[in-house]
């Protein structure tokens, strides 16, 4: 297989690598470089300013707000989403009435549930965000009129307009749209756990609660962990940008009094609205560090002995 091997390798790698280097790697490297300059993005002129942007960032109140929100997203969203998904997946696979002789059984119609739960996953996050923006509308939105309908007419929150509620409202949407994916993912994992494990546990008198924590969760741990990281990266990155930017319009974007601003949205605003490209990349670097730290922490916390079966 030696004949013409290198020519072939170069030929096949050239185009993909060039594209990737030009549009992904090079901008990444550049953005770290720009974070040490005073570039506005509007003119080609700029000079080096050392760590000025970084010290400015540490004094920037809005930065701390967005960092705090992004951190909340990264901690709360995976917790809620993965937790809910595990709960549903366990119900689907083990919550059913036991048929003759079987140690465990899924509920009837579990495949139907899985299909339905997955719906939001195929929709654009932009569409989902728009849809919920209407639903949250305080005057004529679907949610408040349901409240009115069940006799809670006096409870008519402003939802996205309320600085205390806006962030939660946004997070609910992200949970709504991603739970189904993890339900399907965890279900697939649970289905591959051998049945005799459950049978043995049952003979020992274990109830389902014990079964879940002693058998299902440990054997599913790898999947849960990668799901956790995946969700965290989503919550820190593009998904949170889309929901916050679309749903909480506000005077400047990011909700009333920056109550929902997240790091990616702040990067976007600084770069493309305020003409502070260099400062935007600095915040972007902070976001990168946060993402890497998040993944590292989850991996570290999640380290367990690998279980083979």
């Amino acid at each position, binding site marked *: 297989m030696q004949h013409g091997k290198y020519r*072939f390798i170069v030929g*096949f790698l050239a185009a993909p690598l060039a594209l990737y280097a030009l549009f992904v790697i090079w901008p990444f490297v550049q953005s770290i470089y720009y974070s040490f300059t005073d570039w506005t993005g509007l003119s080609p002129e700029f000079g080096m300013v050392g760590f000025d942007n970084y010290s400015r960032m540490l004094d920037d109140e809005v930065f701390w707000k967005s960092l705090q929100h992004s951190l909340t997203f990264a901690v709360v969203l995976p917790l809620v989403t993965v937790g809910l998904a595990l709960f549903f997946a366990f119900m689907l696979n083990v*919550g059913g009435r036991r048929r003759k002789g079987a140690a465990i059984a899924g509920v009837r119609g579990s495949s139907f549930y899985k299909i339905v739960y997955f*719906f939001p996953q195929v929709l654009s996050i932009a569409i989902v965000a728009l849809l919920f923006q209407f639903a949250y509308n305080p005057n004529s939105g679907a949610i408040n009129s349901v409240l009115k309908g069940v006799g809670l007419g006096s409870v008519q929150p402003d939802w996205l307009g309320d600085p205390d509620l806006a962030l939660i409202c946004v997070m609910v949407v992200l949970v709504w749209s991603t739970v189904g994916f993890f339900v399907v993912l965890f279900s697939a994992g649970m289905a591959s756990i051998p049945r005799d494990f459950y049978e043995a546990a049952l003979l020992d008198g274990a*109830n389902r609660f014990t079964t879940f924590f002693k058998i299902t969760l440990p054997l599913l741990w790898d999947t849960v962990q990668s799901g956790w990281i995946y969700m965290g990266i989503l919550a820190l990155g593009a998904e949170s940008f889309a929901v916050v930017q679309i749903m909480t319009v506000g005077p400047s974007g990011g909700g009333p009094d920056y109550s929902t601003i997240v790091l*990616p949205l702040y990067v976007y605003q600084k770069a493309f609205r305020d003409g502070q490209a260099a400062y935007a990349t600095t915040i972007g670097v902070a976001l990168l560090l946060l993402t890497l730290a998040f993944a590292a922490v989850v991996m570290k916390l999640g380290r367990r002995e690998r279980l083979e079966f």
Partner: protein
Amino acid sequence: MKTTDTATPGVETPGSPGGSGTEVIKTVAPAPRKASKSEGATLNVFSHGVLIIWAIMVVMPLLWAVMTSFKTDKAIFTSPWALPDKLHFENWSRAWTEAHMSDYFLNTILVVGGSLLGTLLFGSMAAYVLARFDFPGNRFIYFLFIGGMSFPIILALVPLFYVMQNMALLNTLHGLILVYIAYSLPFTVFFLTAFFRTLPTSVAEAAFVDGASHTRTFFQVMLPMAKPGLISVGIFNFLGQWNQYLLPTVLNTEPERKVLSQGLVQLAVSQGYKGDWSGLFAGLVMAMLPVLAAYIIFQRQVVAGLTAGAVK
């Protein structure tokens, strides 16, 4: 779930989920068996209850959107949950033509079509070389590619904007296609490299011995063999690119070149172009339905494609 020990005979009324037969329930069954039997019953009711509630929570907003898209603006505001008085199809036609939904659809199809093709071609070429050939730098290039999966795109977007501007690619569909391909490569290469490694080497070697060039071996032997992998990763990329919002928002601001997701947001921002909420809902549903329909038809493949990467 501790309520389950109340396995009194009274609970086991006929028709109750636990009374699934007559054999064991009364006396002979060993204690733990019996307890878990009725546990199954309560739990079954409980799980169905919870599962149905979530199913309703998923479906309701979607049904509500469909319903709303057939109502008049006035009805949307006065009675959000009432059924439409009649099906106002004119909302749909207005959205399609006046609100430029047709243009957004066309743009999206062009961009996604082009980038999907490019992603699969370039992704499989790179992955094949990385998976099957030993050469200096192989590992480095591989990690360079998959490293891109964990970086926040937004960080690269600021310089990328100016790279595109300098190359006159900003606000063009072909520019957007190239960027989509580039940002889809990390996962695609990662997935397909693993896939090519699992394919048997003997077939490719035989083809090569028979005088086929490397290129020919790749296109005529390896690619057809890799079809299941290409389908999985293709679906993954299709949904990702079809639903992309961040990249076009930054790199493609020309009104007539907008793609679906940003076009819809644009409509909503401009107050559903002159307060036309019904038209906006029609547009929203219009954008939703094709993907949902495709998902329902191909749900097996979609689920396999979307989850394949995450489990690895």
